[in-house]
């Protein structure tokens, strides 16, 4: 029997879907009040998301519509004068989980797990990590859990970009009232 090759991903349609993030519904646990998760999507790595009580962070990203996620791109904080000890190292991603907290991370198997190296995160252009595409086919929310950093007291993350493609459907926000 002929083995069917996995359908190739049409990478031409992939784009930055950060604009599809519903910013009002996102939240981040353990963020510092002066450096919130809104800084992640500013596109400037000198504006960072900084943790408060310890080095862990729980970033919850909600999309306006269902998307397929292909990759996540992380930017270090202030790569021109980079302090690697505050950079995130161990990252776990959970898909479509509402109200994730730190205690839930131990109970639930992460959908994806990354370990970044110092060289990767200190790259000024960011580091793109591809996810297992099959597990990210119907994503309405991502919970990104930064579990460890490179030894600093707090963690700083300069930016986040999400690459993927929207699932063809209806964006409820574009629906106009009659």
């Amino acid at each position, binding site marked *: 029997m002929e083995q069917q090759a996995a359908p190739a991903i049409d990478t031409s349609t992939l784009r930055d879907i950060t604009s599809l993030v519903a910013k009002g*519904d996102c*939240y981040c*646990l*353990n963020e*510092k009040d002066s450096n919130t998760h809104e800084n992640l999507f500013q596109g400037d790595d000198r504006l960072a998301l900084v943790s408060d*009580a*310890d080095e862990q962070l729980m970033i919850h990203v909600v999309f306006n519509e269902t998307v397929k996620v292909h990759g996540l791109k992380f930017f270090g904080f202030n790569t021109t004068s980079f302090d690697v000890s505050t950079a995130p190292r161990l990252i776990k991603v959970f898909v479509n989980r509402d*109200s994730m907290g730190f205690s839930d991370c131990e109970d639930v198997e992460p959908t994806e797990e990354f370990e970044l190296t110092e060289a990767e995160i200190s790259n000024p252009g960011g580091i793109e990590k591809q996810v297992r595409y099959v597990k990210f086919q119907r994503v309405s929310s991502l919970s990104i859990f930064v579990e460890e950093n490179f030894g600093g007291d707090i963690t700083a993350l300069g930016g986040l970009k999400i690459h993927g493609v929207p699932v063809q459907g209806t964006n409820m926000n574009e629906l106009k009232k009659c």
Partner: protein
Amino acid sequence: MPLESVLLLVDTSEQTRNSDYPPTRLSSQVDAANYLAQSIINGNPESTCGVLTMGGQPRLLTSCTDNLGKILNSLSNLTYEGKSSLPQSISVALLALKHRRNKNGRQRIITFVASDVENTEKEITKVGKLCKKNNVGIDVISLVPNSETSIQKLCDAANSNENSHLVTVPLGSLASDVLISSPITEGSGPAGNMGQMGSDDPELAAAMAASMNAGAGPPAGNDSGFDFDPNMDPELAMALRVSMEEERRRVENNKDETNEPEPMPTVKEDDDDLQKALSMSEGDPSMYEQITTGVTDEDEAMQLALAMSMAGDEEAIKEAMEEMEGVEEEEVKKEMEEEGK
């Protein structure tokens, strides 16, 4: 007042039977919790509030809701039970806050401590840090004298950007009275919110601030004493306040006249008679003392004061005094003094 989800932790342990805070520690808490729930829910249309009891096992009576009736109902029949564990209750509260309906806005735990804290400082700091990590502020209202140290540790551990406070209620005073002027409800409450709404109208805002300062005392929501919600019609509320304030001032002025010598009016120079009278009365301050000490009845004092303010000269005072009973002696004394001069 910002949008927030708040959980009220009421200490219902057996120790709260203690009546050092009138009527009992528990009743005092319930009273304060009523006020807090009201000010939180009126503070923002989307703010929610829940209730959890700490006695025995922590029990969530009402999860976060904007239905004030539900909250007041659950607060109305609390029973004493066992001991309370602060860290355990806060952990349960965190869980309840995590599954709140409205994810926007900040989270806050307001906990009453009305029994001895038996946990180690380590346990308390740990739960404080857990709150900080989950972006939850902790406000503690202490009804236990001399227990600040361990509770202060909790607030310090949870504090991030001044979102955690400790308020100690002085022995014998009402918790809700102390809360009104505390940072826990600062800028909140119906009145505070009115000030915010009127911020685009500086005159209105100033008038409201002035009337609030003047009427500082009872809870802002109920101080008018009328059966209506000041939020519904702030202008009516303000008008009522202003007229009440005027009435209060009038009554106070009347009282002042009976108790103190009149403040010296500024007299136009052409009014010679009055000036003479004034200079005479000024020269003999003891006269007023005699009058006031001789007067036992408030009504008599009032009559006297009225007569004095109407005539303003000695003749009138004498007449007024003659009308009164039991003042002959003073009159004699006064005459003697004048002769002495």
